[in-house]
Every structure is written in C-alpha cells, then in structure tokens.
C-alpha cells in the first residue's frame, strides 16, 4: 500500500483548497494564505475533524451493533424503527440527549462535575489519533505508539473518580471508588499481556507489530496473553461481567448517577469509544490488524481499502464477542473481581510473558511458523 497517512491526505486537501483560493487573491494575501505554517495548522485541524467524525460514526454504529446483537441473544429484534433496521436509532437518541437541559445538582462541585466527563471523552477520543487503521493509514510514525495508547487509555479512572467525587452523591462516590480500584487492578495484567506481544514482535510500534503478524497472527502462540488481555479489557471497559462500578441494581447508575443530558451522552460515547479502542487493540495485537486471512484470493488483497475492510470486520467481530459475554454472564462482586485480578490474572499474565520469551529464545514458534524479524 502507499505510505499515505491520514494526515498527508488532509494536508493535501488543505493545500489544494488554499492554493486555489490564493490564486484569486491579491499578492500579499496570497502569500499569507499559502504560508506553510497556516497550511500545516489547518491540516491538523482537518485531520482531527475527519478522525472525530469517523470515530463518532463508528462508535454509534458500534452501539447499533451491540443493540442488534443483544436483541438477538435475548430473543427479540433490537432497534427496528428509525432508519433501516434501526440504524439511525442511536443518532436519534444522541440528538435527544443533545437537546436536553444540562443541569448540575446544587451541591455538586462545578469544576469537577463538568470537566470530568469532558476530559473522559477527550482522552478516549485522542487514542484514535495513535491507532493505525491500515498500512500507512495512521496519523504519523510513532515508535512508542502502543505505549502511548495504553498510557492515555489508563487516564480514565482519574476522570471517573473526579466526576464521581464532585457529584456529591453517595452512589456516585461508591461507583467512582469501585471504578478506580478495578481499573488499577486490571491495568497490571493488561500491560503484562501486552509485554508478551512486545517481546515476540520486538517493537512498541503498532504498525510494526501488525507487520510482524504477516505470516501468522499472534492469537495462536500467545493465546494465554490474548485471554488475559481480553479479560483485562473487559474490566477496563466496565462491561458485564465487570460492570460493577455502574451496577444498576445496587448503585443506580454508579459514577454517572447525577449526570443527564449531554454530559451523560459524553460518558456513554466515551464508554463506547473505549470499547472500540479495546476491540481495535485486540485486533492489532493478536488478530493481525489489517492483514488478510490466507484464504482471501490475492486479487482481492490489492483492492483499495481492502485492509481497512478486514480491519473493521475483525474489530466488529471482536466487539461481538464482548457483547456475547455481556449477554450470558452475571456481574461479579467487587471483592471477587479484585481477588481474581490480583491473585489469578497477574500470575497468568506473567506466565504469558515467560511463554513469549521462550518463543523468542526458540527463534521459531513451531507449528505456527517464523517471525519476519527472526529470520528464517
């Protein structure tokens, strides 16, 4: 594939438009408008806007996918009436929330109450700037992109706790406490599972990690790491069976009890953005990213956007797995969750790390084949 990045596409667009506008303007204005700094700045903005639009649309489609899947699991049909097969239902829901009055409980802290959800949404969104979508389709070459993505991903407990604390509600506070404890406990096995991938692929760069999976995907040799990663991701995304921070049975809505209208929509969107990021990370680290299955005919592999297509298919299938888990498992209890996290998941993830190291030492991961970086 070409080395065109999303940024270079937006740079090209901005440059093209500005040059044409400049050509009809008098000389001093022309020179100012085609100035390199301005073009770069605008290109960054356009890049951000495209990313925002794409990720938002994807998130909303993801919610639709979850609603339809859940509906089928539950012997019903899910959203049906707005748009074809209810595709526009979530846009309608979002619009409804947008129109609603944003209010703050009188005793709630102003700064924390409003900045918490905003920061939660923004940090969840920023990760999309780092994730490569297809070969070349990333914002830029970052040698430590995996580390950066996970670092931003782990900001969330802070913002959740801030919004929970500033809501001045006992249920919110308990939800915030649970959330912080849970996310911190599951951060460790999650990162250790990632270490296994890093050891085998020898890189922190997501693009390189996917490149290393050309011959075979990591889910086979690193199956243990995959299991730990998916379980940790479930806890990080606060989905059933690990959704106890917002366990509606006992905590009403957990840390977002006091939020309504657009602020609630921020939480909702950010939750699903994080779910999307989680699914994408599973695909990038374990399922070969945009590399295609071997049974795909070679003519189809060179089709434009084929990589993105396969990437999306895998992402949505992985998210479908999360939905399946949600449909069939009850919620665990806080102490059980933390015990499993510290006592079971961390040893398991350490095993995964040692297994990965052994694979690298053996130079080959028979019967799966060899890594490009391992030579023959």
């Amino acid at each position, binding site marked *: 594939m070409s080395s065109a990045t999303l940024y270079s596409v937006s740079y090209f667009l901005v440059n093209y438009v500005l040059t044409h506008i400049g050509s009809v303007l008098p000389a001093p204005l022309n020179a100012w408008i085609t100035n390199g700094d301005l073009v770069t700045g605008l290109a960054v903005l356009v890049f951000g806007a495209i990313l925002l639009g794409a990720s938002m649309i994807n998130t909303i489609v993801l919610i639709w996918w979850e609603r339809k899947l859940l509906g089928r699991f539950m012997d019903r049909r899910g959203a049906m009436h707005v748009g074809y097969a209810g595709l526009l239902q979530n846009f309608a829901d979002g619009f409804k929330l947008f129109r609603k009055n944003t209010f703050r409980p009188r005793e709630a802290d102003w700064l924390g109450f409003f900045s918490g959800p905003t920061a939660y949404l923004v940090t969840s969104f920023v990760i999309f700037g780092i994730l490569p979508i297809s070969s070349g389709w990333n914002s830029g070459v970052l040698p430590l992109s995996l580390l950066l993505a996970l670092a931003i991903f782990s900001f969330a407990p802070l913002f959740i706790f801030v919004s929970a604390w500033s809501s001045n509600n006992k249920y919110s506070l308990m939800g915030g406490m649970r959330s912080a404890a849970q996310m911190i406990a599951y951060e460790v096995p999650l990162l250790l599972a990632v270490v296994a991938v890093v050891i085998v692929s020898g890189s922190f760069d997501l693009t390189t990690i996917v490149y290393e999976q050309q011959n075979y995907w990591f889910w086979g040799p690193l199956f243990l790491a995959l299991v730990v990663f998916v379980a940790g991701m479930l806890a990080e995304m606060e989905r059933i069976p690990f959704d106890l921070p917002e366990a509606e049975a*006992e905590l009403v809505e957990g840390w977002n009890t006091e939020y309504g209208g657009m602020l609630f929509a921020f939480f909702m969107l950010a939750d699903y953005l994080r779910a999307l990021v989680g699914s994408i990370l599973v695909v990038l680290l374990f399922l070969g990213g945009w590399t295609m299955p071997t049974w795909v005919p070679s003519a189809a592999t060179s089709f434009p956007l084929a990589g993105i297509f396969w990437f999306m298919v895998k992402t949505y299938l992985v998210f479908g797995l999360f939905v399946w888990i949600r449909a069939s498992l009850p919620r665990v209890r806080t102490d059980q969750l933390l015990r499993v996290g510290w006592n079971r998941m961390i040893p398991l993830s350490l095993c995964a790390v040692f297994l990965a190291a052994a694979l690298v030492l053996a130079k080959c991961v028979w019967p799966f084949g060899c890594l490009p970086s391992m030579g023959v």
Partner: protein
Amino acid sequence: MWINMGPQHPMTHGLWNLRVKIDGEVILDCDPEMGYLHRGIEKISEDRHYNEVVTLMDRTCYVAGFAWEHLYILASEDALHIVPPERAEYIRVMCEEFQRIGSHLMWYAAFVQDLGLMTPFLYGMRDRDIVLDLFQSYSGARMTYEYMRVGGVRNDMPPGFSAHARRALDWLSDRFVEYDRLCLGSEIFRKRCDGLGVLKASDCVATGVTGPMLRSAGMRRDVRRDRPYSVYPQLDFEVAVADGADVTGRYLVRMEEMRQSIRIIRQILDWLDHHPGPVLADRLPRWLGAPYAPVGKEDYVLKRNYPKGVGLSSIEEPHGEAQAYVVNEGSEHPYRVKFRSPVFANISAARHYLIGYRVADIPPIMGSVDVCVGEVDR
C-alpha cells in the same frame, strides 16, 4: 455511612426504602421502611360489596392477583356459609397454580436482572407472557382479572383451553432446563449466590418468615399440604425444599415449585376435561352482588335474616403463607377485612439475613425474597 436504597431505587422492585449502614462495602446495619404504597385496601373493603372487593385483591399483589382473589374468596365463603361447586374449586386452584408460575417467572426475571443478567430477564418475561395469555383467554385480563366470585368463578373455560394450556405447560417445562443452564450452570452465578443471605430455619420461625425462604432452609412447610384447602387434598404434588437457606436454595425451591405447579395443573386439566358442570353456586344471596349471579338464580334472602359469621383462610401464596380474616355482620359489605402479607414478614426480617454481607449482595438477597410491595402495604 447510612444510605437510602429507595423509595426510588432499582433494587426495591416497588416502593419501599431499605436504609443501609455501610462501612466501605460491608453492611453493618439495615432498616427496612415500608408504607409508601399504602392504599387502605382493608378499609376500602368495608365499604364494598363482597364481590367488589375482588377488584381490590387483584391490586393487592399485582403479580399474584389470582392467589389473593382465592385467599379472599375462601375467607368470604367461610364467613357467608356458601359452598362453591367442585368444578369452580378446581378452576380456582388451577388459577392459583398458574399464578404461582407467573409470579415465580416474574421473580426469576427480576432476580437475575439484579445479578446483571439481562438475557434470562427477557426469557422470564417472555415465558410469563404465555401464562398471561392463558389468563386473558378466560378472564379477559392479563393482570387484574376480577374473575373469582363468592360462590364460584365468573365463567367457565373457553373451548379449546385445555389443549392450549397443555401446550403452554410443555413449552414452560422445557424452558426451565434452559433457565437452570443459564444460572446454575454459570460459575459466576454460583459464586455470587452460594451461602448468600443465609436465614436458618430457627430464625425463619422466630421472625415469621414463610414460603420459599422457609423451605429453602430445609423446613418442609407448605399450607397446601399441612392445612389443605379447596381441592388440594385430591391433588398429587411434592413440597419443594432445599437445604442451603441461601439465595441458591431459594432459587432451587422456586424452580421446583414451578415444576410441581405444572404437575398439579396437568392433573386439574385432566379432571376438568371429564367433569363438566356449573362454575357458580346455584343459589346465592341477591345482595351479594346481583349483577354477577346468573339470572333467575338469585336468592331473595333478606339481609337481616342472613346468618352472621367469621371467615378465616390461609393459603400458600407464591411469596409465602397469606391469611385473610373476614367478618360478616349480616350486612352486604364485609364488616372487617384483614390480611396477613407474607412479604411483610419476609422483608421485616431483613436485619437477620443482610448484616455482614456486601452492598453488591443486597440486590440478589432482596431479589431472592421476592418483594411485592403492593401486598406489604395493602
């Protein structure tokens, strides 16, 4: 820290308030507060004709309307010295057993949702709808039936009801296997529910707890067998018991009760198929509610000549042991009506089975009690 779980809280399944004192996640103390749904049903009943009270009974417990109708009708007939035809009694018992299935399915749906299981919730509601469809086919209503009458029931089964009911029972007994696989087959479910909310048999007796909670503690007590009423002596069934005294035990008891109810209903359907007959007593006092008595069958007994009496009945309601007390002072209205709600006793004992557990355990424990606030406050 004291927190109010209610009166508007997803855990309550109704309108009551559980005040809980917590330290972190551990429950130190609790204090159930009822009375938010008090409608004065017992007092209103004193101002109604005997048959009009049936309307209120449907609203007493809105998920077990037939059981409360049956309870009240048994006490009224006792007070009024009226004997219903046998077919009507069989139909009433069938209603009560179907209602037990419906109520337990509603309980199942609400209970699993407290544990975060959304799928079985919808399965439970879907299957409860089948029971409601059957109710609708002969009483015309899905929840507020107004079907039973002093001296019988309003109307007979529609043609083809027996076949429909049998098909529904076959479907339901298959579904119970599915429920068990979704719940008992799940490791997380067992981890959450085993040894949770333990209330020993001795504590049950001391606090007046009855029904599935008592039977889950291993005590084989069921009014249908111990003090049989209506046609229960003629029916063959077993009393479901478990020995955990915990949430899992209550789950097992209710599941087994539904199976036993199916067994009872099958026997009743067989009986009904072969014993056609009237469903309302031949001669009823006209003042009992003339519009309901068959034309020409009204009895012109004067009110002042009618013998006085006191009626007491006790039935095994889906939630536990319910009792009714009706005083007939010779007027067209009951002089006094009083009920014993099993759920009131079951909730009041909350201190005995909640303290020491965690906040996350409150919904499953209270869910396993099967709270119906309508009958608690009345």
